[in-house]
């Protein structure tokens, strides 16, 4: 059996998670501060991939990245980037698609920290940046871990978006979930079963891990 789709899925999930850690932490912190109408709209947009059919997101990304359209032409001319039917396109789509899984638990964690904790640090003369790295971030460590693991697991299970903009190119965009679909299409049930079982096992272990961690450290991020 060809293990490449599994590795591709793991690679995609890993890269997406790393990118999202750097993007998600500042966004979540910003959202957890004072509310405003702009933030409300941005938070709604970030949360949309949770409820929107992945095909909707995939469709619009396909249009946006299409080499015949404005953004697609611009990316191609300036960065020589071909986003449709490429791994890079999958990474970008996954970042958008998994954004709520990173941002929402982190935002909850940030807002649960007592305000006085940061204030105590300011009073001692510490800057906002120093306070963020020495007081705020270390105290949401369990939530950062949970958010990262959930993002990883969610990206691993991505199907609709990948199908729309990635297609089914071996070694490039043929991730495990696509490989299952492809195997079933060609009546190769044995391969489909193998891929499905591996995905099931990985995801199961991840979810158990999150539960164990949450029991000892923090409440589930969606509570």
């Amino acid at each position, binding site marked *: 059996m060809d293990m490449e789709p599994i590795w591709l899925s793991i690679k995609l999930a890993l890269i997406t998670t790393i990118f999202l850690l750097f993007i998600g932490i500042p966004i979540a912190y910003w959202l957890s501060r004072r509310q405003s109408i702009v933030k409300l709209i941005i938070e709604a947009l970030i949360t949309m991939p949770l409820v929107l059919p992945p095909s909707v997101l995939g469709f619009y990304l396909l249009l946006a990245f299409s080499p015949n359209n404005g953004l697609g032409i611009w990316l191609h001319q300036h960065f020589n980037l071909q986003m449709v039917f490429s791994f890079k396109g999958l990474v970008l789509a996954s970042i958008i698609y998994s954004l709520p899984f990173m941002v929402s638990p982190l935002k909850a964690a940030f807002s649960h920290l007592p305000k*006085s904790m940061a*204030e*105590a*640090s300011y*009073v*001692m*003369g510490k800057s906002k940046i120093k306070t963020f790295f020495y*007081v705020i971030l*270390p105290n949401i460590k369990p939530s950062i871990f949970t958010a990262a693991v959930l993002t990883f697991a969610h990206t691993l299970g991505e199907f609709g978006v990948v199908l729309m903009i990635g297609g089914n190119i071996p070694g490039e965009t043929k991730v495990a979930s696509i490989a299952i679909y492809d195997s079933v299409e060609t009546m190769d049930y044995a391969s489909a079963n193998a891929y499905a079982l591996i995905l099931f096992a990985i995801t199961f272990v991840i979810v158990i891990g999150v539960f164990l961690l949450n029991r000892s450290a923090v409440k589930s991020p969606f509570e």
Partner: protein
Amino acid sequence: MIKIDIFKKIGGRYGAVDLRVNTTFQSGAVTQISGPSGIGKTSLLKILAGLVLPDSGMVTLEDEIWFDKAKNISKKVQDRNVGFVFQDYALFPNMTVEEHLRYATNDKEYINYLLELGEMKVLSKRYPKQLSGGQQQRVAILRALATKPKLLLMDEPFTALDAELKLRLIKGLSSLFLAQKTTVVLVSHQNDEFAHQNRNVFLLSND
């Protein structure tokens, strides 16, 4: 001397309250603020610290303007050199007792002195969740002292301490305040704290 003449509309869990304060606090002395719940005692302390900004008015310490709405001056919290003991302690769960003090100052001798003063020496390697309420409260007090603030603001700082320990701690604090010429403003419902030294009482009311 701290001069404060401010107005602030505060909306807390007790509903909206107009906080209007026009008074002075004597330097190098202990001033106790008392008054009914929800009247704005904590807000007043936070205004002095610069954590909350008044809607109008001014705050000055000696000749230095800390806040002046008309002149659009507001000295940053970080630059005011105040100590603050929060009612909820506001300890850092990721730091041990000693690390709390080290975060505030590099002066090892002074850290040792504070640990002795708060009777926390043997507990210095513990994290907040491994401490009792009274021990946590003492860490909050010691941490506020660690930066050697000119002005120390304390929000009900002794509520979790038993009577004997409280007496010993207040005695220790009194001599420290005297030596460092600390100006202290504290919110408390008790009247026996710092009773033996230069202490003023300021009653906050809304009339």
